[in-house]
């Protein structure tokens, strides 16, 4: 009995040492390769704050590889105006533009900066926020992003949030972000402060079969008790119109500040008429948009993009037609919307080419001034 107890205690001590070593290793790794202070317990929520109810980046925040400047945007420290002859470029968008940590190859704004820097003096600021809709971009611009006084704003709007339960509205982004992410106030100290457990939770995945069954059950529960017609079997035109109306409002506000606007169409991995290989991506996206069927999810961005092209043509608004060049080509994406390294490269080439004319015009404008 005694020897068994001793064995158990020894095993327990070994487990403690393993966990201690793991925590030490995780912190040393983060410090060496990502510059995270050894004793810090960073959380993703450290990146964000809000002003007048509008969510934005916290000035000088850092989390993993993300660092924000003095204005809470990703990019260099900025003054009131860009340097002589330099052009300040601001990106607005969702997680496709913000970048996803688990995807190798970087995100496209950084590549665009590298491409444009060959020929121009450019300050690139990334104002994208994961989960940001066009509606929340309006509030974000009004309350915060305009302070950057960009010369050019590139808008890459995510489309699928317009298929959610509620219509997106230009509410304070903090409200929208909370409802989207479900983030509650973090306790002062929690298991999530452990870097090792954070990594472990990221690394552990339930087998695909179980994930699919759980999601299927959840989706079926969402439909229960809903009125007839609640489920979008086909893309709802009122949401397409709402999307474009919000884009129009955003473009108006940005142009009113004197900045130029370049608009992008939203590229996705699936075809407008879903193929067999598209099912997995569409099924996964329904976690965020249970109100839309897979065929509605697939067709909606194509309808929105058609409407954006028409709008851009009518308003003589420069357009980067990412959707036409990249959509439905699976190698460009790692999931429904996020770019693979190949896709990032292609997207950045497209955006840089699309911005080039505006860059030249802006430099000339600066010269005249």
């Amino acid at each position, binding site marked *: 009995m005694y020897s068994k107890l001793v064995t158990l205690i020894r095993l327990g001590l*070994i487990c403690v040492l*393993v966990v201690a070593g793991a925590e*030490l*290793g995780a912190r040393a790794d983060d410090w060496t390769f990502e510059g995270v202070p050894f004793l810090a317990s960073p959380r993703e929520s450290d990146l964000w704050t809000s002003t007048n109810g509008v969510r934005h980046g916290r000035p000088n925040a850092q989390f993993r590889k993300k660092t924000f400047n003095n204005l809470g945007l990703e990019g260099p420290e900025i003054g009131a105006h860009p340097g002589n002859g330099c052009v300040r470029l601001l990106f607005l968008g969702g997680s496709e533009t913000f970048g996803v940590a688990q995807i190798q190859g970087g995100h496209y704004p950084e590549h665009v900066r590298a491409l444009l820097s060959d020929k121009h003096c450019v300050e690139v600021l990334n104002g994208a926020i994961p989960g940001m809709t066009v509606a929340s971009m309006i509030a974000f611009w009004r309350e915060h992003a305009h302070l950057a006084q960009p010369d050019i704003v590139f808008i890459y709007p995510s489309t699928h949030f317009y298929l959610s339960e509620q219509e997106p509205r230009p509410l304070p982004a903090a409200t929208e972000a909370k409802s989207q992410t479900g983030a509650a106030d973090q306790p002062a100290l929690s298991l999530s402060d452990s870097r090792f457990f954070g990594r472990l939770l*990221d690394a552990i995945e339930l087998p695909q079969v179980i994930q699919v069954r759980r999601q299927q059950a959840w989706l079926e529960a969402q439909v229960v008790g809903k009125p007839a017609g609640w489920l979008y079997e086909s893309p709802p035109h009122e949401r397409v119109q709402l999307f474009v109306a919000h884009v129009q409002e955003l473009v108006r506000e940005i142009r009113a500040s004197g900045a130029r606007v370049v608009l992008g169409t939203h590229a996705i991995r699936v075809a407008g008429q879903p193929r067999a290989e598209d099912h997995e991506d569409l099924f996964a996206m329904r976690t965020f948009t249970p109100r839309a069927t897979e065929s509605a999810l697939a067709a909606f961005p194509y309808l929105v993009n058609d409407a954006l092209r028409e709008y851009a043509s009518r308003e003589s608004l420069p357009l980067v037609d990412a959707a036409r060049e990249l959509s439905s080509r699976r190698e460009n994406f790692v999931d429904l919307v996020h770019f693979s390294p190949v896709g990032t490269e292609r997207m950045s080439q497209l955006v840089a080419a699309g911005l080039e004319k505006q860059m030249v015009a802006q430099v000339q404008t600066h010269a005249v001034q």
Partner: protein
Amino acid sequence: MLFNSLVFLFLFLPVTYCVFWLLKTTPQRHVWLMLTGYVFYGYWDPRFCLLMAFTTLVSYFAGLGFLKYSDPRARKLLLIIPITTDLMLLGFFKYAGFTARSLNDAFQALGMPWSVPVVDVILPIGISFYTFHTISYIVDAYRRDITPTRSFFEFGAYVSLFSQLVAGPIVRFRQIEKDLENLATANRWALLPIGLSFFIFGLVEKVIIADSLAHFVDPWLADYQSLSTGGAWLAMLGYTMQLYFDFCGYSSMAVGLGLMFGLRIPQNFNSPYRSRDPSEFWRRWHISLSTCMRDYIYKPLGGNRDGNAMMYRNLMLTMLIGGLWHGASWNFILWGAYHGALLVAYRLSANAWDALPKLVAGTLMFVLVVIGWVLFRAVDLDMAMSLYSKMFIPTAGSIPETAGTFAVVIAIATLWSTAGPNVFEFHERFKPTAKQLAFTAIAGGIALALITGVRPSPFLYFQF
């Protein structure tokens, strides 16, 4: 699945280990090892299992044939047929595309209108290794160095043993024959601590050192054209260390896993960067491969029995084949030729070379090895030539801002690889003391943290 993956560490290994030791008899354990080997291999691609099963069956029946027939002609057939089968399979999966492309390039260069259809086939992982296992079994049985086993599951367990299946060490049947026969009497509690210790040591080598180096080496060499002379040398020094710790780490883990199951897998690396001449290097680097090449290629060619000229020829041929074994590419053939030339050069100048001060000889050998690794790492000859030109012709270029940290990591790795103990030296007087257990537990924890991080890196030798 990789040894440094969560599914291996927390699912496959615990289940395999627990069931193995719950089984009581040797035949039961053979069956289990064989089954788990196929599960491990099938995790990559279940289709690969069919190929391995076919190779196993052919060699097994050849072994039975050796037991039955003593007639020299029959034995010769039993030698030739399975080896030819194995080599044809290896040739098809590994070399068909390369051969066709090389022939087409040659026809084009000579202005001939011919072309050979290029068939691109998926290379089954580990085929070079398990083919070597079966060929060595056949040859040793033919030479009467071993008695072939009548137990299909014992032979199947030997071929499919998951610990060395996909990246070695190349274990000859005679090296673990006794352990395989005595599985029922293996002492679990004596073997577990040392097996775990070997495994964690290997995990540290792979995950902490090799993968940390990969973090720098891969992006630097991805942009090799912008490197300066200093940058090129630093990148190749980093790769030199990365390759060693990656492969050595894997071998250490394989040894540890073998021990946990009562099998003593031989040492594969003996601090090769301490070598002072090419001959010593090949006694220390990938020992299982170099001894196989010696016993199954060099000696049958004549070895050093027929005068110096033939010896040099045999050395070159052996190393050329060794290079080709690593990969279907001119880079690897040139790398093999390079090391063959080094061996010949050493034989020609042994007196002068051996008279060099140890530090000078050691440094010279190390630099020569680094130069050879350029061919090993480059994706094609253009990249290799470009790197060589940067390394030997002063070239301006960029030095990435991570150079300082990179240099520190290289320095630590170099110090460990040359002056520090290797895994066998570390365990020479192994006793599971409290201090050693604590150190191992902490090191294991650190490795676990890095495994769960966002910088995965496969084992470099898997591509062979």
